């Protein structure tokens, strides 16, 4: 397959402007003729649906939640980046661009990232106009804080609930359009297939989760804004229902899947406490502004941390990375935490934790000051662990958090299937091999508010559309296939619950495809996952009926796709014989244990193409060209 990234020619800073000028427009009166289905109502989906409806397109929006506002974006804590330079600390669009390309370890496209940095300022303006209560200082102006991988303060926030507030802004814009009759919204619908007719995405098939009906929706373009796939690891910081089904089924209909092995592990999460754990909880990166990370210098030191004197503490991030210190990027910080714990310096009952300590800041600024900034995070920590982090340091450990990989899209955010657009975490576009903190909210809203509205118009204006409705046989075939899969699942009546098998998959993924990977382990994963898959189809138990609310059936559908995706992740990780960002291959490290890239051989996006059941996927490469930033060994020292 020929991958055409459609990156506009011309100087970097002019690309987006000249592209917008060259894109064809749909005249306002004609927009009603086009029907767009937007799957997902997180930041990316809600902002896109609202914006497209405001422009006059006919929009159908749906999600598997009861309400659009329950999307996983609601849980984002720390903040959203924009180089407003309100802090007057030397920030600029170019600096955000630079930080993001470097943070992504030179595995993203310059043109996309520059555009992201450009439109990010508009996002803050838009959100404030919607009434999003971003934090302000005593003069009434917007406040910012710092996030990892940056030396400027460019992160806007609303306490530890930034995602909630931004999503409510987008949800309210969406609700306004629903109220005005410009958007038809369906709650509790799960997209289970994409319908492609004559090479164009022309509809989707969903399951009504209340009554089990399989329903088809025909349209002129489909937008997937369905979030990331971190739950392939079972335990992650993502919401429980977050899954890969929409993008995976689109992959099986012809959309290439890019860089699946680029998964992000977040350094500061509450450690796993038992086998019964259902998910992991993030403690926002913003805490690293005011908390210091350390472990005792003595192996297995079981003393109360408050009794360990200063000289016996190893503030290892500050020691190894004096210029970025506790704000070193996520991939680097996670690996160093694993390293000190593997070497026996870890703390807590399992030894798989390090301290995040607020003592010094509390002494300096007082407890109230901390409470105002991070109160909800401290409360959350107390709820889960029963401990008071104002008095004793938090215990934290890395956990799966975000997926940089996703469906391949061109500069217009269109996948390799014409008419299928992919926004937000579901696409692979902007974060390379490692995402910087506070950049996902930025990307989701950039895609939804400011990019798709231009590029989708060009697609409509440049293509012909035959009339298609749901009586088309492609819908019948897809519906029939889904019904037979459902019948098959319900008929197995095995002995293991869906989550039993999902947890096994999670163990395999974490063990062999987690923070550090090597060829031998990845090969083991590639043997273990297929046999787990075989067990699933033989021995899973999915009780209940098809024509009813059936949460086990929902989970089983998602697990089918996680099992298949798990293999592709391992395959991709095995083929990428280098370390970069979140993808750390033990065979490829520098003398001081940092990721060692191989730009000569791997400076490309790996876009995997599905070739039918039983056939190995085909690897397509989009090579990355750096005209402005010269790839160098990342250093945060």
């Amino acid at each position, binding site marked *: 397959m020929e991958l055409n990234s459609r990156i506009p020619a011309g100087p970097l800073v002019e690309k987006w402007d000249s592209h917008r000028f060259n894109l064809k427009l749909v005249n306002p009166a004609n927009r009603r003729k086009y029907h767009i289905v937007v799957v997902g109502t997180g930041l990316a989906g809600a902002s896109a649906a*609202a914006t497209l409806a*405001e422009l006059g397109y006919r929009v159908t929006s749906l999600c598997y*939640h*009861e*309400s659009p*506002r*329950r999307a*996983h974006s*609601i*849980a984002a804590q720390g903040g959203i980046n924009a180089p*407003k330079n*309100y802090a007057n600390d030397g920030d600029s669009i170019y600096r955000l661009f630079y930080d993001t390309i470097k943070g992504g370890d030179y595995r993203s496209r310059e043109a996309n990232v520059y555009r992201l940095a450009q439109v990010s300022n508009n996002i803050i*303006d838009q959100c404030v*106009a*919607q*009434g999003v*209560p*971003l*934090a*302000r200082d005593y*003069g009434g*102006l917007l406040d910012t804080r710092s996030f990892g991988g940056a030396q400027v303060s460019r992160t806007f926030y609303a306490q530890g609930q930034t995602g*909630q*507030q931004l999503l*409510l802004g987008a*949800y*309210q*814009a969406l*609700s*306004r359009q*629903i*109220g005005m009759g410009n958007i038809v919204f369906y*709650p509790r619908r799960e997209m289970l297939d994409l319908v492609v007719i004559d090479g164009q995405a022309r509809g989707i098939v969903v399951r009504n989760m209340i009554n089990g009906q399989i329903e088809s929706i025909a349209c002129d373009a489909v937008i997937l804004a369905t979030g990331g796939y971190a739950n392939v690891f079972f335990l992650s910081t993502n919401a*429980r*229902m977050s899954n890969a089904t929409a993008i995976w089924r689109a992959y099986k209909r012809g959309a290439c899947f890019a860089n699946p092995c680029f998964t992000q592990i977040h350094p500061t999460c509450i450690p796993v*406490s*038992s086998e*019964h*754990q*259902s*998910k992991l*909880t993030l403690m926002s990166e913003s805490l690293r502004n005011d908390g210091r990370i350390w472990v005792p210098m003595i192996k297995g030191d079981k003393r109360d941390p408050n009794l360990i004197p200063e000289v016996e503490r190893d503030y290892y991030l500050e020691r190894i990375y004096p210029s970025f210190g506790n704000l070193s990027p996520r991939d680097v910080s996670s690996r160093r935490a694993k390293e000190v714990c593997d070497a026996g310096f870890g703390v807590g009952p399992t030894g798989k934790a390090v301290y995040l300590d607020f003592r010094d800041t509390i002494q300096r600024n007082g407890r109230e000051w901390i409470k105002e900034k991070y109160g909800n995070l401290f*409360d*959350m920590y107390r*709820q*889960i662990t029963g401990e008071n982090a104002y008095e004793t340091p938090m215990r934290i450990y890395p956990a799966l958090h975000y997926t940089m990989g996703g469906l391949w899209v061109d500069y217009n955010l269109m996948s390799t299937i014409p008419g299928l657009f992919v926004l937000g975490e579901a696409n692979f576009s902007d974060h390379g091999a490692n995402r910087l903190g506070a950049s996902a909210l930025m990307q989701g809203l950039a895609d939804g508010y*400011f990019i798709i509205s231009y590029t989708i118009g060009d697609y409509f204006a440049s293509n012909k559309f035959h009339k298609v409705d749901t009586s088309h046989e492609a819908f019948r075939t897809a519906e029939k296939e889904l019904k037979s899969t459902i019948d098959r699942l319900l008929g197995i009546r095995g*002995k*293991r*619950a*869906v*989550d*039993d098998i999902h947890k096994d998959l999670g163990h395999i993924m974490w063990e062999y495809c987690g923070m550090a990977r090597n060829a031998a382990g990845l090969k083991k994963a590639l043997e273990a996952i297929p046999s787990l898959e075989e067990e699933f189809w033989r021995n899973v*138990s999915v*009780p*209940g009926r098809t024509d*009813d*609310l059936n*949460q*086990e059936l929902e989970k089983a559908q998602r697990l089918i796709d996680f099992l298949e995706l798990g293999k592709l992740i391992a395959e991709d990780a095995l083929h990428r014989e280098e370390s970069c960002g979140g993808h750390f291959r033990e065979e490829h490290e520098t003398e001081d244990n940092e990721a060692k890239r191989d730009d000569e051989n791997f400076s490309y996006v790996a876009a995997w193409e599905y070739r039918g059941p039983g056939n190995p996927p085909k690897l397509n490469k989009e090579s990355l060209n750096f005209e402005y930033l010269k790839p160098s060994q990342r250093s945060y020292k």
Partner: protein
Amino acid sequence: MHITLRIWRQTNPAGPGRLVTYELSDVTEDMSLLEVLDLLNLQLARNGEEPIAFDSDCREGICGSCGLQINGRPHGPLKGVASCQIHMRTFKENDTITIEPFRAKAFPVVKDLVIDRTAFDRIIQAGGFISVNTGGAPDANAIPIPKNTVDAAFEAAACISCGACVAACKNASAMLFVAAKVAHLGRLPQGEVERKERCLSMVAQMDAEKFGACSNTYACEAECPKEISVDNIAFLNRELLRAKVF
């Protein structure tokens, strides 16, 4: 720990429901209550029995999906937390825990512990927004807004729309939910233009959805997992008065 669970089971919206008792012995203190339900569901599923349907997603008290009446109280015995944030260390060995869905006419039961709160969405659709299209917004710092104004708006905007306020109210009133949104937007200069219309249309939709009247007993505030203040209700009442007078 050994725990007895009494759980509401109901096959469909019309159907009669009933409390079913389950005994669980391998519960640990650091499990959350929802993880105990997970554990029970694993055991049911392995035996081919239908697990208990319940909503939850974020499991950190922010998405508002989980809405359980625990031992007769919305979100259970602890103040300021959602159902998903309750851990078993809150309970004692051999405790019996009764779990039901939130009860309100406007929140019909879908199945077991799953309810339908889409009425809340329709109230927002009626007016819970500021009418700005994408694009053309002025610079975010163009209007300075006093910190305490933004902080008060934020406190109101922290509502997670779980419905505990409705479940706590003997009249099943949605007044705190509506007031929180009216106060969030109405306190900010950006929300000024639509103040009047916003509160009138949201309240009209609230009445149409068959929520009851507010009788100022403030049970809502006491059970709200986000501790949203009833001061917002006073704010809403002032807004309504103002809207009717001017």
